[in-house]
């Protein structure tokens, strides 16, 4: 009983606190938000800053992706604000890679007065937030959520129906999963990289299964033999000996790894310890493997991957971005950071020449952005691709670069 009353009084106190805090944020959207992640720019006479929000896993097991995107977007916002003119304000909220929390994070951003949304960093939360953003008509451009369910409007080939209708204000900066899978299969076939292919993928992950499904379909179509298909999940992502042994015993000479780099690095290390050296082939999630702290890059020698971003590139924009990132956050940026950076810049490019009324509503801004992004003369050159364009499907059109790792660095293929 005593416990109950204490808990009750504590609860009332805290709930009152919540309501008060939320009320503040919702009520006076002009006041700067009290988070550490807001931009330093502030208003310098050119009207109120455009508020850009994003959600991503900032804590928990997937925190690398969310934090990278947040940092990348922050660099872009700082650069833009330093130009003077149109000012941006950025706020990232934590979604712990959970759709439920992502919606709350999105709602928090909405209460803050967000005018454009960088979406969610990971696929499953993005499916949830894109639906919300679609209902609220807030422009959504995700750096890295590559599932087709995010965009909607993709026909299921078996049933010839569209399970999730196209959400007209949702756009992606990254490749959509099926494109990556089929492009990889096509590349392997064209370049005759392997006759017997093994695939290891993460079967509780939307990204990994999405790529695998399209890869397998394309491989079958082209007659590329998949001799071994094995999976892992979050709970079984420590030991890969079975998956490696299966590939090895089935004589696979190429192993396709549609997964993120931290899992892939474990596979490379464990395969090396049993002396298995096939041709490794990765996707854009593989990027970042060379800058893993403590990873012996010799193990990645000869790994091929399709990636839009290369942190070692001599390209001026990239090297500037990488050095700023290192200076600010102490790490080498991965593709998530680069994609988020590109997202902010492309939104900026789309609206910089527009006449924006003071305090434009998210919905009006959304209309302008959709019109701009789908217009044929809008294209954007960024870190993750040149002359990128978008169409009504929301998917980006840019060509993945085939890369091979040689001497601890990416070397362009083709």
């Amino acid at each position, binding site marked *: 009983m005593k416990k109950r009353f204490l808990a009750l009084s504590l609860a009332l106190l805290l709930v009152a606190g919540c309501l008060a805090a939320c009320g503040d944020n919702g009520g006076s959207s002009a006041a700067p938000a009290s988070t550490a992640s807001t931009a330093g720019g502030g208003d310098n006479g050119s009207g109120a800053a455009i508020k850009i929000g994003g959600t991503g896993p900032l804590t928990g097991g997937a925190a*690398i992706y969310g934090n990278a995107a947040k940092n990348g977007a922050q660099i872009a916002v700082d650069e833009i604000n330093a130009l003077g003119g149109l000012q941006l304000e950025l706020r990232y909220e934590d979604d712990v890679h959970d759709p439920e929390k992502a919606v709350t994070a999105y709602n928090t951003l909405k209460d803050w007065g967000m005018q454009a949304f960088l979406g969610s960093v990971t696929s499953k939360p993005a499916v949830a937030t894109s639906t919300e953003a679609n209902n609220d008509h807030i422009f959504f451009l995700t750096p890295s959520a590559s599932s087709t369910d995010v965009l909607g409007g993709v026909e299921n080939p078996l049933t010839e129906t569209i399970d999730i209708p196209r959400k007209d204000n949702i756009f992606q900066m990254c490749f959509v999963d099926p494109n990556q899978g089929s492009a990889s299969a096509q590349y392997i076939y064209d370049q005759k990289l392997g006759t017997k292919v093994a695939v290891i993928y993460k079967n509780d992950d939307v990204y990994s299964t999405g790529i695998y499904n399209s890869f397998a379909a394309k491989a079958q179509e082209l007659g590329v033999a998949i001799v071994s298909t094995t999976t892992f999940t*979050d*709970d079984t992502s420590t030991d890969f000996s*079975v998956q490696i*042994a299966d590939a090895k015993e*089935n004589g696979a000479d190429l192993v396709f790894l549609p997964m993120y780099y931290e899992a892939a690095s474990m596979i490379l290390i464990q395969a090396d310890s049993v002396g298995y050296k096939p041709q490794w082939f990765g996707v854009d999630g593989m990027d970042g493997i060379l800058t893993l702290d403590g990873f012996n890059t010799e193990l990645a020698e000869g790994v091929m991957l399709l990636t839009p971003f290369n942190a070692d590139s001599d390209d001026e924009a990239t090297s500037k971005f990488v050095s700023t990132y290192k200076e600010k956050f*102490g*790490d080498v940026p991965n593709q998530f950071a680069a994609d988020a950076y590109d997202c902010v810049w492309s939104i900026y490019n789309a609206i910089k020449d527009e006449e924006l009324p003071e305090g434009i509503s998210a919905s009006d801004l959304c209309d302008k952005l959709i019109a701009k992004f789908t217009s044929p003369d809008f294209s954007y050159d960024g870190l993750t691709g040149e002359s990128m364009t978008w169409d009504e499907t929301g998917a980006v059109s840019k060509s993945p670069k085939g890369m091979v790792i040689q001497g601890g660095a990416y070397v362009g293929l083709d």
Partner: protein
Amino acid sequence: MALFLLYPINITLRRGTRWKRGKRGAGSVRGFAPYAESGGGAPGQPEAKLEVVSLSLVNNLINGVSLGSVYAIIALGYTMVYGIAKMLNFAHGDVIMVGAYICFFICSDFGMSPILGILAAVLVCTLLGVLIEQLAYKPLRQVTSLAVLITAIGVSYFLQNAAQLMWTSNPRIFPAIFGSGGIQLIGDLTIPYKTLVTIGACLVIMAGLILFTGKTRTGKAMRACSEDKDAAQLMGINVNRTISITFAIGSALAAVAGVLLCSAYPKLIPTTGSMPGIKAFTAAVFGGIGSIPGAFLGGILLGVIEIFSSAYLSTELANAIVFLVLIVILLVKPTGLLGKKVSEKV
């Protein structure tokens, strides 16, 4: 391809290889022969086939023992704390993570010897364990063990998030401090050094713990506390102090486990300890919670079952199969493999 015919359940060729039904189907008839058969489809001599089969079997066994030895060493720390304090220390996995980080920084960033790294990890973790115990667990000693369980979860969240703030969420690859090679048996079969070290460490720690709890005064006091706290108190044992010592030892073991876990599976992130922690806890229950040899046995068996079920049944369902086997064994032997049968009194 003929293997697919054995399983008529809606399987398509595209998906055919996903769940290795064929292997299991044929395997039940001819031992583990399908492994050889699917090995590139080379129709070798029968005896050559048999050799490949037994090789892959032995290989999987080695992999299973490697994984199991890591579970075992974590389970030892779990069972130690559980047996005496009667609480599920959910923060154990996160103390492991802290130990691994400390060792990583000493070895990788300062380039000092691994021994120094392990010592530093043990020291830091012991202090951390004592600190956690004093601040978070000790005030709750008189209330239900469930209350402490919740505090332990709070401590676990705290450690994970503090680690992320201090050391970022970027993964680090733990150095191979025991070398990457192994002892070569026949052909491709090698037992990695790290597995040998882990098993050796398990055996040493196990022997040490058995001797400690059996021979020393403090150890005997621990056993007394685990039997009956009130009676132990009446016999003049300082129960509070004994439990604190248990936590100190448990945390020191966690540090060692952290180093061994990460040298076997080198991805180091702030959540590194949580999943192995849960698996090791399962292993400890499997072997009979509170039993030191049981933790070792449970850990090894859990690893072997996990590897075998993903090798011969399904990689998708490996986790489910492990837990199913656990359930079946607990139903047959309700107090775990080596657990004591406690007679109940009214």
